[in-house]
C-alpha cells in the first residue's frame, strides 16, 4: 500500500480529482481485492462497524449489486435507499432526504442519480465522503476504473495505448469518465459515433480524437469499447434506425479487422447483441466483457476500503 497517498474522507465525483499516481494506487489495491474474491472465504473484517448508504435514484441492477457485494465483503453495514416509494415520491427534496438519512449515522454514501452534479449536492449537505455511481450523462468513475483495471491487468501500462470508444458518446457518462482516466494514464483515445450523438467540442475538452467513420477510428487500436445504443434515441430524431446504426457502427469480425490483431474488446453492459456488437466479437477470446464485471467488485472494494481508511 502506498502510505503517502491519502484517500480517507475524499469524495469520488469523477477521475479529474485524482492523479495518475492515485489511480495506479487504486488499481494496485483492486488487484489485492481481486485475489481475495478468488478465495473460498471471500470476506475481510476491515470495515466492520462502518455504515455505507447506497442512494439509488435511478434503476440499476449490476452497479448496485456490485457495490453491495463489495461492501459486504469488507464487512461494512449497508443501508439502501431506493427512490421508488420513498419520500421523494412525496415531494421531499434531495437536500431534506439526505439530511434525514444522515441523521441516522452514515459513514459513506454511494449515489446513482439521473441528474448530473447530484453527488456534489449530497456531499454539501452531509459532509461525508460520496462515491459517484453514475450521475446523468456526467460521470461514472467506478465503471471507468474497472475498465481501466481490465486493460491494465491484460496489457500492463496504458501509456501509448490506442483506445477507441464507439457509440452514443453524447449520452455516455462511461465515455466521459474513461476519457479523463485513460488520458491521465497516457493513452491515445479516439471516440467514434454518429454526428448527432457526438457532444460539441470533445477534442477541446478531453484531448481525444473524434472520428465518424468506424474503420478509420478502429485503425491500429489496442483496445475497443462498444457502448449501449438505446432505442429511444431513434424517437428523439438522432438517428434513423437501429439497423442503419448497426450497419455503420457495429463491432464485428469484419470491422475489427482494422484494429490490432489481438485488440481487447470491452463493453460496459448491458449489451444489445446484434446492434452495437455482434456475438462473434462479444463472445470471442479477445472479449473481457465478463471479466469487467468481476473486476467491478474488486475495484469498488478497493475504493470503499481506501476512502474509509481500512488497513490491510
Amino acid at each position, binding site marked *: 500500500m502506498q502510505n503517502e497517498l491519502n484517500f480517507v474522507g475524499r469524495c469520488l465525483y469523477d477521475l479529474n480529482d485524482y492523479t495518475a499516481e492515485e489511480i495506479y494506487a487504486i488499481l494496485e489495491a483492486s488487484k489485492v481485492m481481486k485475489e481475495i474474491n478468488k478465495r473460498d472465504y471471500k470476506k475481510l473484517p476491515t470495515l466492520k462497524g462502518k455504515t455505507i448508504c447506497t442512494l439509488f435514484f435511478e434503476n440499476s441492477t449490476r452497479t448496485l449489486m456490485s457495490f453491495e457485494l463489495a461492501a459486504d465483503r469488507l464487512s461494512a453495514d449497508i443501508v439502501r435507499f431506493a427512490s421508488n416509494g420513498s419520500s421523494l415520491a412525496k415531494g421531499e*427534496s*434531495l*437536500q431534506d432526504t439526505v439530511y434525514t438519512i444522515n441523521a441516522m449515522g452514515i459513514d459513506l454514501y454511494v449515489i446513482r*442519480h439521473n*441528474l*448530473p*452534479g*447530484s453527488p*456534489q*449536492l449530497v456531499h454539501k449537505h452531509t459532509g461525508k465522503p460520496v462515491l459517484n455511481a453514475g*450521475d*446523468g*450523462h*456526467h*460521470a461514472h468513475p467506478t465503471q471507468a476504473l474497472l475498465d481501466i483495471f481490465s486493460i491494465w491487468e491484460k496489457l500492463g501500462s496504458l501509456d501509448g495505448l490506442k483506445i477507441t470508444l464507439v457509440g452514443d458518446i453524447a449520452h455516455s*457518462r462511461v465515455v*466521459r469518465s474513461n476519457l479523463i482516466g485513460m488520458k491521465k494514464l497516457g493513452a491515445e483515445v479516439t471516440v467514434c459515433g454518429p454526428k448527432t450523438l457526438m*457532444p*460539441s*467540442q*470533445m477534442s*477541446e*475538452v478531453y484531448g481525444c480524437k473524434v472520428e465518424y467513420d468506424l474503420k478509420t477510428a478502429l485503425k491500429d487500436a489496442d483496445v475497443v469499447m462498444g457502448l449501449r445504443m438505446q432505442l429511444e434515441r431513434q424517437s428523439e430524431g438522432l438517428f434513423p434506425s437501429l439497423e442503419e446504426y448497426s450497419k455503420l457502427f457495429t463491432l464485428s469480425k469484419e470491422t475489427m479487422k482494422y484494429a490490432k490483431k489481438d485488440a481487447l474488446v470491452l463493453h460496459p453492459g448491458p449489451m444489445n447483441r446484434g446492434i452495437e456488437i455482434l456475438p462473434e466479437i462479444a463472445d470471442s477470446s479477445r472479449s473481457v466483457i465478463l471479466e469487467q464485471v468481476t473486476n467491478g467488485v474488486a475495484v469498488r472494494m478497493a475504493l470503499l476500503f481506501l476512502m474509509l481508511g481500512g488497513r490491510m
Partner: protein
Amino acid sequence: MLVKNGLVYQGDKFEKLDVLIKGTKIERVAPSIDETEATKIIDAEGKHVFPGFVDLHTHLRDPGQTHKEDIISGTKAAAKGGYTTICAMPNTDPIVDNIATVEYIKRKAKDVGYCKVSVIGALTKKSEGKELTEVASMLEGGIVAVSDDGGCVQNTKIKLNAMKYVSNFNIPVIVHAEDYSLSAKGQINAGTMSTKLGLGGIPALAEEIIISRDIMLAENLNCHLHIAHISTAKAIQMVREAKSRGVKVTCEVTPHHLLLTEDACDNYDTNTKVKPPLRTKKDRLACLEGLLDDTIDFIASDHAPHSDFEKEKEFNLAPFGINVLETSFASLYTGLVMENKIELTKLIEKLSTSPAKFLKINSGLIKEGCLADITVVDLEGDIHFSAETMVSKSNNTPFINQTFKGRVDTTICDGVVTWGAGTKS
C-alpha cells in the same frame, strides 16, 4: 436638499459641482452653492454623483411569488443598487396581461416602493403565445412596453400579428429570444462546459434564430423591436447590421453576460443557471464590444430572484435566474471599469442616460430641470454580498460572499432619499 462637493456626471466627464434639489427636481447645478439654500446637506466630498440608474428588466415576483421577492423588497434592492426607476416584467402569477394587475403594481409601488416602477405588459394572454392582450387598456394603466419575457412566442404568424397590432401604439415589443425546440432540456450553454458537466446544452442558435426572425418581422412591419438580454456574438452582429440599414431595433445586455462565461457553471453552482445561459469568452467580449460601439443600447439587470430552497437543488431542477439589482454597479465597476475595459462615463450612460431616454423619462442626466434622481457612490468603498447583507428576499447571485468596490452611499429618487442616510424604513 443640497448634494455638496461631489464629482458630478456631466455626460462625457465628471466635474466638481454642487447639486441643489427643490421638490422633485434639480433646481441648479453649479460649482459652489451656498449651504443656506438647503435644509438638508449630503456631503459628497470624494464621491461620485450619478444620475439614478434605470432598469428596463426586473422580475419583482409580485403578485404571486412573493416568497422570492415583492414590491417592497425588490424596490429596496433597487434603491440599494442605485436605481431610481425599474420596469417590472409581466411573468408574475397571475401574468400582467390586464389593466387591473398593471394598476395593482403601480399603486403598490407608489405606496410602499423605494423607487419608481414602470410596468411592462404581456404580449399575449397568460404569455401563452396564442391570443393578443388588450394593449390599449393596459396602456391606460400605464404600461411602457409589452413582452412575454421568460417565454417566447414560437408561432411566427402570432408574433407577426402581435407586433403589427402593437406597432399602432408606439411602444416597443420586447423579445426574450428562445427557440424551444432547440433549448429543450438545456441547462447551460451548449459548448465545452455542457460537454464536460454532462448537462443539456442551450445552443447560441436557439437565441439567434428567433432574433433573426424578429428582426425580419420588425423590418417588414416597421415596428420597434427591443431584444432583451442579448448574449451571443452572432446575435449582436445581426443587430449591428439591422441598425445600419435602419431597422427600428434596440437591445440590452445584462451585467452577468458582460462579466461571466460558462466557466462559472463548473461545480454545478445553480446561482449561475440563467437564461440565456452564460456563454463563451468570445460572446462575452462581443457583448462588451457591442456596448462600446452602441450596438447594445443599455445594460438591463434581468433581476430574477429565487429562494434558497428553490436553488439548493440538483442543477436540472433549479430554476433559471440571477439576483442582480444590488450587485450590478459594483460588479460592473470592479470587473470592467477598474480593469480598463470601459470608461466610467460610458458605464453611467448605459445604466442611466440611455435607458432613461428609451423610457422617455426626464431622468438620466444631472442638470437643471431634470427629475432629482441621483445616486451618490463611493468608488473606493467596499461592498460585500452575503445572505446577511442583501436586502432582496433572495440571495441567488454568483457573486455571493464576494466583495467589490463601488458602494452606493445614497440614492435619491424624485428628491427623496431612498437609500443611505435618512432612508425611510
